[in-house]
């Protein structure tokens, strides 16, 4: 029995919608079967909470008196540089930006204690942030210097805009070399001493809608503790990635670009993050509701950790050299047990994305929907799927001949 989004929204308004999270749906489908569960359940809520470097925020700061043209000048927020190559008082702050005087990896591994993600977290927490700017001065924007405290509540606009979030599946990282390496997948011990992974697995938005049947451009979502929208497919969106017999990608595949009002968000779900020896970034919380319109949609949304496979990749050689070789494949069920076997050896596993907080997000979104505070949307346009043929390309270098 097919339902429509409009019908589900009507039930949400009447407080009659049946909403479960992506973990609860697994047992429910096992108990009742797909057909019965699809009739009874209206919405499955998903969640993920992990470091997502493709995150940023843009701001309109308001005009000073006399005016200053920050566009084309330099702007620092708590010493972290923001991008100014846009209009006079609009700036964009990237999650991985870091202070000019950060030691980086001069003493390896650098700690990367503070960056753009930390500034975004501070702003969302309602803290004052120090703005220091220099401009070149024009007839209509004469001022050249600006130093002031700013606060999120005083800005005209503060928008979280993340060009790549919510990766549908990801690598499991190991280190086959004989020294410790420091990566965006965490500290990796030599001789495959540990294996780090980063996906909410059975709770993760795009793993619960493996063929993008309900999640598309315009989908309303939980973003950073507030409400956001899917703006576009994320950068590096790769729907043609290898898939298992169940249709679920076994490598990094789809991604989402998302947008939302930073003023409605919370520092619990936007956390400044430091990856030792790699850089600063931000951990982002995202939850996407999946309307159960038919049995196929529910079948995808009831996927279990045991059925989601990821590739184990050596971050000491194959990854940096962009070689396609993998060490092996493993399921999230095995990864979550705390130990996997690689070449007959027991290897402890660790997650970089927080399952408990992903579950908290799915629960919060469920709560909003049950209370009638959050209505579902139909996509304005679909995300490119397998049939689009879209695939991610490497950069093919072409030497630049120096002119005499």
């Amino acid at each position: 029995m097919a339902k429509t989004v409009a019908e589900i929204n009507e039930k949400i308004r009447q407080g009659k919608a049946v909403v479960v999270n992506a973990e609860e749906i697994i047992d429910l489908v096992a108990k009742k079967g797909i057909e019965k569960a699809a009739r009874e359940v209206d919405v499955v809520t998903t969640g993920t909470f992990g470091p997502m470097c493709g995150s940023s925020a843009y701001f309109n700061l308001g005009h000073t008196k006399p005016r200053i043209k920050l566009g084309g000048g330099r702007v620092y927020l708590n010493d972290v540089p923001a991008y100014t190559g846009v209009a006079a008082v609009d700036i964009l702050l990237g999650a991985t930006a870091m202070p000019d005087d950060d030691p980086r990896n001069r003493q390896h591994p650098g700690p990367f204690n503070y960056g753009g993600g930390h500034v975004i977290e501070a702003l969302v927490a309602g803290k004052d942030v120090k703005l220091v700017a220099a401009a070149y001065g024009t007839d209509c924007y004469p001022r050249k210097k600006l130093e002031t405290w700013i606060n999120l509540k005083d800005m005209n606009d503060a928008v979280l805009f993340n060009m790549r979030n919510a990766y549908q599946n990801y690598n499991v990282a190991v280190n086959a070399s004989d020294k410790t390496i420091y990566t965006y997948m965490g500290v990796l011990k030599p001789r495959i001493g540990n294996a780090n992974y980063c996906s909410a697995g059975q709770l993760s938005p795009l793993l619960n809608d493996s063929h993008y049947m309900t999640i598309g451009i315009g989908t309303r979502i939980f973003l950073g503790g507030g409400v956001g929208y899917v703006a576009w497919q994320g950068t590096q969106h790769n729907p043609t990635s290898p898939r298992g017999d169940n249709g679920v990608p076994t490598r990094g595949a789809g991604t989402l670009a998302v947008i939302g009002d930073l003023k409605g968000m919370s520092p619990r779900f936007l956390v400044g993050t430091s990856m030792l020896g790699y850089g600063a970034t931000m951990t982002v919380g995202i939850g996407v509701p999946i309307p159960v319109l038919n049995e196929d949609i529910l079948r995808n949304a009831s996927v279990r950790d045991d059925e989601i496979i990821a590739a184990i990749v050596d971050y000491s050689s194959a990854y940096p050299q962009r070689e396609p070789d993998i060490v092996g494949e493993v399921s999230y069920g095995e990864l979550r047990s705390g130990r996997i076997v690689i070449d007959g050896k027991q290897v402890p596993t660790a997650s970089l994305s927080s399952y408990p907080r992903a579950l908290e997000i799915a629960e919060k979104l469920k709560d909003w929907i049950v209370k009638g505070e959050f209505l579902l949307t139909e996509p304005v346009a679909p995300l490119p799927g397998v049939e689009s043929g879209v695939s991610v390309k490497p950069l093919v270098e072409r030497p630049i001949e120096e002119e005499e």
Partner: protein
Amino acid sequence: MAIRKRVVLQFPTRMVEQPIIYHLVKDYDLVLNVLKASVTPREEGLMVLELSGARKDYERGIKYLQDTGVKIQSLGQDIRRNEERCTHCGACVTVCPTGALFVDHKTKMVNFDATRCTACELCVLACPPRAMEVYL
């Protein structure tokens, strides 16, 4: 009665080249586990030790250290978790050498058992939201 204590030893420059730890083991029958050591010739040395043995031997050993001029501080629970900052991701659990940080497989939360912590500090910078804090 057996005793197990963690101590921080500071060696003045002149003493770095003396075999003090050797005597601690040989003459006082103490079992020691080096948790952290930074000892460079002609510079001050710092060592974090876990000492275990009979209480009587431990007290005599500490007296010996004091008599040689080593500065001793006991090491309490000096690594704490900022519960507000911990996101329960798990990045620390394979870095922790003693299993003081571990995932509860039922709740999938990361637990911190301070009694198993040896204050090696490996988790401090490995923690992405920097929730593990050092108190001295």
